[in-house]
């Protein structure tokens, strides 16, 4: 841009960006500071008095630690499921087979429904008496118990929630990887084939390197999303039975609105957000690098 405009432009840039920035400061950053302040306040204090008591309590709270553990395994298993299914489907869809548009649209459907509906859907499918899963299994394995309780089973409740979340989330990873696959130039494969590279070698030397950035972006984003997943768990199990399927977001919600322990819930929310921030750094760095 010509130098005559620089001074003027610099200020105009601020003018364009200012409304959004101020709005975000008001509706997001200001409330976040209230949470931070509350997290350092004693229970039910009238005024503000600095104390780390809520955090000390949090670190010794087995329920919170359990929710952290659950959240991490929820995130990890969901990411594995999303990646395996997403990559497999993307590779299959990239072959340009007849009917691929149909398959792509169907495969996308789970992603298009709200989380809460996905939770309801699986709650109904897994219903021990009237649901679809038990009769379905019994047609293949007649000895399977007729009224098997998936969501109140101590070992299977949490894995069931994870399977529901894999179902809900694989399509997005799939479309991202498919977009990445389509962007790999065909000549690279042809050149590798001419050099005598077999299928597996082509996959590891052409496909994977070509996909590496989009894989990183997809996984980094997925991690953040699954870490804060809320509605699916609420609709499917509500965190129960007991605290078996409790994740951080449901626990913070309950601590605020069912146990009414404002200061303690604030400390939990801050801890959760601190971890979430660290987890989102890879994505912020990845995208930030592209912007330069």
């Amino acid at each position, binding site marked *: 841009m010509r130098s005559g405009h620089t001074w003027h432009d*610099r200020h105009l840039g601020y003018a364009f960006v200012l409304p959004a920035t101020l709005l975000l400061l008001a509706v997001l950053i200001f409330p976040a500071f209230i949470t931070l302040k509350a997290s350092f306040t004693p229970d039910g204090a009238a005024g503000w008095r600095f104390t780390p008591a809520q955090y000390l309590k949090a670190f010794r709270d087995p329920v919170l630690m359990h929710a952290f553990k659950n959240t991490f395994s929820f995130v990890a298993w969901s990411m594995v499921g999303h990646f395996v299914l997403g990559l497999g489907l993307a590779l299959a869809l990239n072959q340009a087979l007849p009917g691929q548009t149909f398959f792509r649209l169907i495969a996308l459907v789970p992603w298009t429904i*709200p989380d809460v509906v996905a939770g309801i859907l699986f709650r109904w499918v897994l219903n021990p*008496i009237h649901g679809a899963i038990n009769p379905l299994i019994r047609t293949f394995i007649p000895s399977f118990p007729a009224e098997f309780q998936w969501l109140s089973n101590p070992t299977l409740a949490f894995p069931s929630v994870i399977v529901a979340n894999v179902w809900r989330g694989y399509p997005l990873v799939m479309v991202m990887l498919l977009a990445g696959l389509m962007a790999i130039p065909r000549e690279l494969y042809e050149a590798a084939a001419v050099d005598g590279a077999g299928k597996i070698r082509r996959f590891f030397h052409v496909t994977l390197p070509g996909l590496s950035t*989009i894989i990183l972006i997809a996984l980094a984003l997925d991690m953040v999303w699954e870490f804060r997943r809320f509605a699916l768990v609420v609709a499917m199990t509500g965190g129960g039975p007991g605290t078996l399927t409790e994740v951080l977001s449901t626990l913070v919600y309950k601590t605020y609105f069912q146990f009414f322990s404002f200061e303690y819930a604030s400390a939990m929310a801050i801890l959760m957000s601190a971890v979430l921030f660290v987890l989102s750094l890879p994505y912020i760095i990845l995208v930030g690098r592209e912007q330069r």
Partner: protein
Amino acid sequence: MNGTALTSERQERRIDAIVSYGLLILCTIFAIFPFVFMLSTSLKSEAEALSLPVRWIPKQFTLQAYTEMWTLKPFGSYFWNSIVVSGVTALLSTIVGALAGYGFSRFQFRGRTSLLAFFLATQMISGVLVIGPYFQILAALELYNTLTGLIIAYVTICLPFAAWMSKGYFDSIPKELDEAGLVDGASRLQIFLRIICPIAVPGTVSTLLFAFLLAWQDLLWALCLVSIDEKRTVTLGVAFLVGEFVIKWPMLTAASLIGSLPTILLYLFLQRFYVEGLARGAVKG
């Protein structure tokens, strides 16, 4: 030699196709099976949904659930609330976000990179961080249990998204157009409104629709900021049906399907655009 290479390649292709179809068919069943069951339940009478053995295809098709949801439960008002809240949020976020997106795309100013990172980072925040203060602040402002309160809350999700989405779109419009306008003596605002905005219509409409869907899908905020039936959104109304002592499954599944209709249709239409936005930093949770 050449002939065998060709046949082995053809054979390889055939195996590829068989494996791919196998995987696609299995996944299609996995993807669609819960849906089909939900659809089938929504077309049953309540008695049939609870009768054994479980039937895949209703013995007696009925639209009872689809009519009852509007009379037994006020789904009409739930829909209206969702439309108003999501619509206003989307409009507000897209307008303010487009201004910011244009600013980020076209101007160099001090703090630009940090501000961009700030907008990106705010997309990563979980609403859980601020639901407590929101409850207090909105109660103090007498905005608890109002659609206005929900709109303010949804701006926190939709605005950072819209800013990044439109920045990406403006980046794809050549800067030469702005420069040509400057040469013609137009002001920056005129250039934005008269030259760039008309070109950016498709991108802006997509941003608007995505912002709409973001607000439409939410449950967390509605759960925390609305406690009266008249102000419930569709997702909240559906979630409350699950919490009832006796769940009316046909009505619940029917309401879930109707409530998902906007998101299903729009996401399927707009998915390509959405994926482009993702790689550029516009993120939906």
